[in-house]
């Protein structure tokens, strides 16, 4: 997860999340797991009073083509609409983050690595 800085366990069922926000700022919140079905579903909700108000779930479903992973996420950005607008400009909008993260998750699970060209040789006139 490229956009997450850290996740730590606070106590059973409660975790602390630190994500990269707009303009190099960190966004932090605590979340509680509210539903869990082994191999099929994890659902969570942020604790009251968190900087970010969020709820979501990850669903796993077996299909003839493989495992379908579906993420649902609701959130209110820290600085309201302005925050989301800034975030969108910086490519840090949650829909984009989740799409990118899901692709990297699929790449890692299916191939054992995430493809990259960062740092490869390139001509000097760029």
């Amino acid at each position, binding site marked *: 997860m490229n956009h997450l800085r850290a996740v730590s366990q606070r106590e059973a069922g409660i975790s602390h999340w630190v994500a990269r926000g707009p303009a190099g700022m960190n966004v932090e919140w605590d979340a509680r797991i509210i539903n869990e079905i082994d191999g099929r579903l994890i659902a969570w909700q942020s604790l009251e009073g968190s900087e970010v108000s969020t709820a979501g779930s990850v669903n796993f479903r077996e299909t003839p083509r493989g495992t379908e992973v579906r993420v649902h996420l609701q959130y209110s950005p820290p600085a309201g609409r302005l925050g989301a607008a800034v975030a969108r400009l910086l490519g840090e909008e949650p829909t984009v983050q989740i799409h990118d993260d899901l692709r990297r998750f699929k790449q890692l699970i*299916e191939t*054992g690595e995430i*493809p*990259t*060209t960062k740092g*490869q*040789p*390139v*001509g000097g*006139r760029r």
Partner: protein
Amino acid sequence: MKAVCWEGTDNITVERVPDPAIMNPRDVIVRVSSTAICGSDLHLMDGFIPTMKAGDILGHEFMGEVVDIGRSVSNLRKGDRVIVPCAIACGHCYFCRNEMWAVCDNANPHAAISEKVYGYPAGALFGYSHMMGGYAGGQAEFVRVPYADVGPFKVPDHLSDEQVLFLTDIFPTGYMAAENCNIRPGDTIAVWGCGPVGQFAIRSAFLLGAWRVIAIDAVPERLQMAAEAGAETLDSMNDDVFDRLKTMTGGLGPDACIDAVGMEAHGAHIDYWYDKAKTALRLATDRATAVRQAIHCCRKGGIVSIPGVYGGFIDKVPMGAAFSKGLTLKLGQTHVHKYLSRLLRHIENGDIDPSFVVTHREPLEQAPRMYRTFRDKQDGCVKVVLKPH
């Protein structure tokens, strides 16, 4: 190391760049012994492929010796002599598992670009634009090869570089083009374009049992090379191709037509000048003379097979002719990995010696000049092999 770099349209250079290094566990580094210029590299030179960046290292037809190995690669050893498929494929996704290697779902680090343009993430190629992955190519002294546990293919020492190098792209591409024609005994196959891919398509059509192959081009030495494989030939500038094909097939038309020309077709017809004007004005991206003619000429119920590269939009496609004749269209990048064992057997059996296509052998430093010679079809140029070391 030295590498061939794209610095802009019509601006190919040889530069000193850093050596490549292992970046992922499934990578290897190959010391390149031979690398070729592909007809599709000319589309890059001519600025027809979007998302190139200045400094990009070119080249997707290369082979050499494994000199460094990532920790997850157990099937290769230092010193192995390998050819490397031009398509980069992870080997594990739905598409790779079903032999659609060229449309691998995972290999492209810049999948989001092609998702915007084509609706789905494109596969990845060496040295062929950022939309196609942005991987540095193999027209260089060394190259990093990702997913090396499924891509590189060991080749026997008794075969020369020139006999096996074209397993990387153009031999499988010509072969898949012919295979897509579902050739049955008695079939006549028409091939537009007698460049390297067309030459391999002609020979593959015969390998797969075609009765006749009719080759269409405007360059005499390329038609001569086609004739040497047993093809009958038509001059696209001076013959009425449609009329001649119909007459030669007793009015029936060719059973299948192969467009081995692609997006930068030249032609004698009005539609060529129409495309030329539209692409110059950026109202269209590709020139499509060959595929239009192939659709028009194909017999009823026949197959139009398209190994020629297209990148964007074409218009004036004779959809009515295609529909009324009930044609099948088959196209796309080559699933190189799928054909390697089969085609190596053909080479070892002596059914075909792919080195026939090579007309020019030069040191890597000569790449800028050889790109021009190849593009302008000067000096009888059909295929250029570059030697980096």
